């Protein structure tokens, strides 16, 4: 796992045995690891939703099929928004690493705008689907579709809320360690949502239009 060498014979002042890890350093506190564990549990929510969709994907109940309702060019634009927002978040991270507040704020704002564009297009798609009668109540397929894609969209929405909050905090307090930690956590959240979206566009949209 790590090339740390452990020695178990170090005693603290009160005589208790302590493990000394040489050559590797402990995380300052467990926030990043804790947040990663949260993301892993979120992963399980999405696994359940993907499994539901997988089971119901062809249960049309006389309603429209994926081939009839999915607009792949719209999905391609949405995918590029999210992918671009991933690299712009990376730029924000690089600016933060170089201790440049202005650049961090700028790239975070661009990321937020791309996220908002993604969300806007997704809401338009949902509106369009409901308008043509493809509501969540129509069939098992559409129920599972709205549940999975809607949950992902909600995550993006909360990501944007978090991002805007972070912009204000950065503006007020600057690049203090606490804010850096928050930017790191949001970066994990944001990139994680992109990973989930890779699953969504492949499994839901691309496979949904296959005959």
């Amino acid at each position, binding site marked *: 796992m790590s090339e740390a060498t452990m020695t178990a014979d170090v005693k603290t002042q009160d005589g208790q045995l302590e493990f000394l890890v040489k050559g590797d*350093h402990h995380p*300052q506190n467990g926030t990043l690891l804790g947040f*990663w564990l949260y993301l892993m549990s979120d992963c399980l929510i999405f696994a359940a939703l993907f499994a539901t969709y997988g089971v119901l994907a062809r249960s049309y109940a006389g309603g429209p099929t994926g081939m009839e309702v999915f607009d792949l060019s719209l999905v391609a634009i949405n995918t590029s928004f999210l992918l671009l927002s991933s690299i712009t978040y990376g730029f924000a991270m690089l600016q933060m690493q170089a201790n440049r507040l202005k650049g961090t704020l700028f790239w975070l704002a661009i990321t937020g705008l791309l996220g908002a564009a993604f969300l806007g297009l997704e809401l338009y798609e949902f509106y369009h689907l409901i308008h043509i009668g493809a509501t969540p109540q129509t069939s098992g397929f559409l129920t599972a579709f709205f549940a999975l894609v809607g949950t992902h969209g909600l995550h993006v929405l909360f990501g944007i809320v978090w991002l805007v909050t972070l912009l204000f905090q950065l503006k007020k307090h600057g690049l203090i360690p606490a804010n*850096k930690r928050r930017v790191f956590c949001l970066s994990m959240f944001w990139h994680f949502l992109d990973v989930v979206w*890779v699953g969504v*566009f492949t499994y839901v949209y691309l496979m949904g239009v296959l*005959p």
Partner: protein
Amino acid sequence: MSEHTHDHDHHEAEGPHVSLKEYVIGFVLAVILTVIPFWLVMGNVFESSTTTALLILSFMVVQIVVHMVFFLHMNFHSEGGWNMLALIFTLVLVFITLAGSLWVMISLNNNMMPGMMG
């Protein structure tokens, strides 16, 4: 990849050291791995749906690994290896959830009487 590049002057900052190169490589790979599956489906490259489905699912798996490595900076060193351990455990659970649900439900469907399908 950054093989344990945590030098000790970065000690006050939490999280991995990131580089522009890493993000650019990740982004270019992700774009390629996105464009190909869209092209395979939208251009009707293959006659058989099964071939296309298997191919785009493989591209999905590769792209997820790319995102994990280049954007989420996953490796065996960060956080003393604990986040990799959590990830592997989660992947096992995800696999059981997905494969198990699909397996059970598809064989249930297959064992239904033909008239009751749909």
